[in-house]
């Protein structure tokens, strides 16, 4: 598993909202947890390179992705980060195969095809390879979106509520497949039931600030009742 330097410092102002975070990613899975409007998605978008923060520094695998002081800001495509959001934005004019192959054009055709098949199989979607994206169901789209994000073998996978809207069986199946992968994951959720059993560290985010960091069940246990009430 690629080593992620424990160094994410971000300060970002967007209108009246301020995101102020400083944390390390030391576990394979880190859950960013908090209520709606806490800044979870903004944090992921900054890490992915889709939003430029006001100031900050991000290091990944010994590489500096962002350093405002040194005027370094790698473009999204060079950060080796996969990003899957709640709405899997599959390219509607391509098949599942075309979508997964989009980010690995640098591979020769045989290697590319093998990688596409491997990724689709990983998420139980190999039979969907020739289906065009608009003909896939919601769950199938998420499987293909995950396969697409992982095809270029990113150092970090950002997941923004990827299981939202799925039935329990599909969500459980996709989650167990994700947990078996050798990839570092930052997982955003506001669903306590969904993340409760994850072997993860948690970063508790509220109103743009980190209120706690640590082993998931240890950090969230004291807040569980309060959080459940707040999130209802």
């Amino acid at each position, binding site marked *: 598993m690629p080593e992620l330097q424990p160094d994410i410092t971000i300060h970002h102002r967007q209108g009246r909202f301020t995101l102020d975070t400083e944390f390390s990613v030391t576990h394979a899975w880190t859950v960013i947890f908090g209520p709606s409007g806490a800044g979870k998605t903004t944090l992921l978008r900054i890490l*992915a390179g*889709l939003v430029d923060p006001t100031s900050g520094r991000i290091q990944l695998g010994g590489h500096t992705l962002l350093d405002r002081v040194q005027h370094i800001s790698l*473009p*999204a*495509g060079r950060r080796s980060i996969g*990003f899957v959001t709640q709405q899997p*934005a599959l*390219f*509607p004019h391509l098949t599942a195969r075309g979508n997964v192959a*989009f980010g690995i054009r640098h591979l020769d055709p045989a290697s590319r095809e093998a990688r596409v098949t491997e990724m689709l199989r990983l998420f139980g979607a190999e039979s969907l390879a020739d289906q065009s994206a608009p003909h896939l169901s919601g769950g199938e789209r998420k499987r293909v979106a995950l396969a697409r994000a992982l095809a270029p073998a990113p150092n970090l996978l950002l997941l923004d509520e990827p299981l939202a809207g799925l039935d329990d069986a599909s969500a459980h199946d996709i989650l167990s497949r994700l947990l078996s992968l050798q990839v570092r994951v930052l997982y955003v959720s506001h669903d306590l039931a969904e993340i409760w059993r994850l072997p993860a560290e948690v970063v508790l985010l509220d109103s743009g600030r980190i209120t706690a960091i640590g082993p998931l069940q240890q950090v969230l246990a004291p807040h569980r009742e309060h959080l459940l009430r707040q999130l209802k």
Partner: protein
Amino acid sequence: MDLQALWLSLRLAATTTLVLLAIGIPLAYWLASARTRLRPIVEAITTLPILLPPTVLGFYLLVLLGPHTAVGRLTARVLGHPLAFSFSGLVVGSVLYSLPFAVQPLAAGFRSVDTALLEQARLLGAGRLRTLISVLLPLSTHSVIAAAALCFTHTVGEFGVVLMIGGDIPGATRTLSIAIYDQVQEFSYAAANRTSLLLIGVAALALVLLYARRSSSGAANA
């Protein structure tokens, strides 16, 4: 029927459409994605030909491409003949005159593509050119076809710019609309009627092909 004028009009419209797509696609992409203060200025300049009387545009082009300006002398030296009163001159005039008809639908098409798709393309390592070719253009085929049809029909029907910059030289600058003007001047109303019907037919055919393409794509996507 003036077949020579018909052929010239079709040749001019086809050439203008191809040139406009080549210029309009990158320009529209820039307009749809640029975040600079230059954008509204460039957008206004590209839209200006809609508001300008064609004779005004034609007049200034005639002056610009004439022997008294550096541009006119340079193009004459490069091409071996002045641009004014030539087919190439008509193409230049038509491209400028129909520029908004290419850029506006293309930019609208590009802007309507879901930004989440463009972000995924960026995340997956696609640069601006690949995003344009692999994502934006395939998702904006309606807009590309609409732009092409509008440019083609608009060029077939243009009169003021063509007359100002090209005059009325049979086989070189005498298009269908100029032929109609000549026929009316000669009181040949029957001939003018036939040529006008031909012009309407060409425009209608282009639009029918456009809408047929839209319908078939719509059915395929349903």
